[in-house]
């Protein structure tokens, strides 16, 4: 079943066509890779799907409904979460608090209103219960990533690899059906990359569909069920890892033509 797809998605910045009529599909419960040389438009595509940017043309469909141009926070609430290329953690807040923010729009005790402001002033007892739920749930995610011991550390004090994991944990706390990871392996050494690979597999086992922008080919080929390749904003290939590896256009895009 196709969980998300874009139809003729196009994003133009001034004179530059960053995304050029891309039809991108994501199968439910799969791990889809999105690769391409630098500047191919991968992050722009992400941004246009997740609402950080509004497409110039084309549409995005999630679970059959149009979500084009919705505000980013609304898209998250529909079940799409993401991480960022340059890690965007809440640096001065603790590891635990970062994940707790992910639970923000979820954590509502049945007796409390949706409005956290009214709750805070009037519903002291219920707020305590709500905090307990948020706390337990967040700790569960920290446990999943083996970050429990760092719970009260400031996010900025974590080593780089753990910061990336924290960002993923935070995104997962929003209980998404679809998770976009933007270069999660950037800056990782081979051991860390292997750990990441296993983590992504475990996330898939939870039932989350994953889309992955990555440059680390070993990771991508190893773990993805399907790969889409972008070059200069256009989709040039889409298929299984094996198909992509043997696709001449893809090879040309990355390595240049043989006669040059």
């Amino acid at each position, binding site marked *: 079943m196709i969980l998300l797809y874009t139809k003729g998605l196009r994003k133009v910045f001034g004179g530059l066509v960053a995304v050029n009529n891309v039809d991108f599909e994501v199968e439910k419960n799969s791990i889809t890779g999105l690769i391409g040389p630098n500047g191919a438009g991968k*992050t722009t595509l992400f*941004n246009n799907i997740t609402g*950080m*940017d509004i497409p110039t043309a084309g549409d995005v469909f999630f679970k059959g409904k149009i979500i084009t141009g919705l505000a980013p926070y609304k898209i998250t609430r529909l079940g799409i979460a993401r991480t*960022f*290329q340059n890690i965007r953690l809440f640096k001065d807040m603790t590891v635990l608090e970062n994940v707790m923010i992910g639970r923000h729009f979820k954590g509502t005790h049945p007796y409390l209103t949706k409005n956290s402001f009214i709750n805070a002033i009037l519903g002291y007892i219920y707020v305590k219960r709500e905090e307990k739920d948020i706390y337990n749930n967040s700790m569960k995610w920290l446990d999943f990533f083996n970050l429990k011991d760092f719970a009260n550390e400031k996010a900025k004090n974590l080593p780089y690899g753990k910061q990336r994991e924290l960002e993923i944990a935070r995104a997962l706390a929003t209980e998404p059906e679809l998770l976009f990871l933007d270069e999660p392996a950037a800056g990782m050494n081979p051991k860390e990359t292997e750990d990441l690979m296993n983590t992504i597999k475990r996330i898939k086992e939870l039932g989350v569909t994953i889309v992955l922008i990555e440059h680390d080919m070993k990771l991508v080929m190893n773990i993805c069920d399907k790969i889409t390749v972008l070059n200069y904003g256009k989709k040039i290939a889409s298929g299984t890892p094996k198909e992509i590896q043997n696709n001449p256009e893809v090879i040309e895009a990355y390595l240049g033509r043989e006669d040059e």
Partner: protein
Amino acid sequence: MENFNFSTILQHFINGLTVGGIYAFIALGYTMVYGILKFINFAHGEILMMGTYISLIIYDVFLNYFKTPFLIFVAFIISLIIGICFGVTLGVSVEILAYKPLRNAPRLAPLLSAIGVSIILSNLAAFLFGTKSKKFQYPFDNTPITISGISISPNQLMILILSLILMVGLKIFIDKTKTGKAMRAASENQKVASLMGININRIISITFAIGSGLAVIAGVLIALDYKVYPTMGTMAGLKAFIAAVVGGIGNISGAMLGGIILGLLETFGTAVLGLPVGFKDIIAFGVLIIILLFKPEGILGKKTREKV
């Protein structure tokens, strides 16, 4: 409501252009600093004020000895130059002491620091020079010339000519010279510019120097027509900042355009709306709110999306 005929309109136009020229000088300082550092130098108006005070003081000293019209004019020029040098030094020093340490701090920090510098300087001036306003004697005979119902004072003429020269000069400097190109590169992307071998610290200092120099000139021009007082930088600075925003902050042509537009709006606005003097400043703030509501990037500005 005044009688509106061609000559009144032209008169207002000239007045507006003159005021606008002054706003443009000051606005340039804001816009250039914002272009490179993405930061609003709240203390810009106070640099203007300090430089103007120094000019005035030196000028007063000279006036004790120089009595002939020619020498008085020379004294004026010398005092202006000294004032400019002082303003430039002050501006560059403030940057090094109060802003440079905060270049990588979260965005609130340099703003608060600039506010702090602004407060220190305006109170220092009040302490050193007294809170009463002072008058700058005209270095020349300022009786207005009247041509078919329109009067223009030599001072206004001087402002208009100076504005033209300085703005064209600045444009040429930014577009054609090596330093100008370096400044433009630095405002596009600081990291890459420094990788290309551009000394960012030097470029930033030059930016502050030019901005401060222009501001002092503007300050002295204001002082000639009105007066000098410790808080003169605040209102002039605020309005010039509004002008920079209107034109497109970070954009040099924008600052010039914004200054002129604001000057014209203020002059015509007061005349058309018949506002009492107290309400005149509201025009500037009203313009600010409107532009922030409808086109916050300014007339010539580009809509910059934060890179995600």
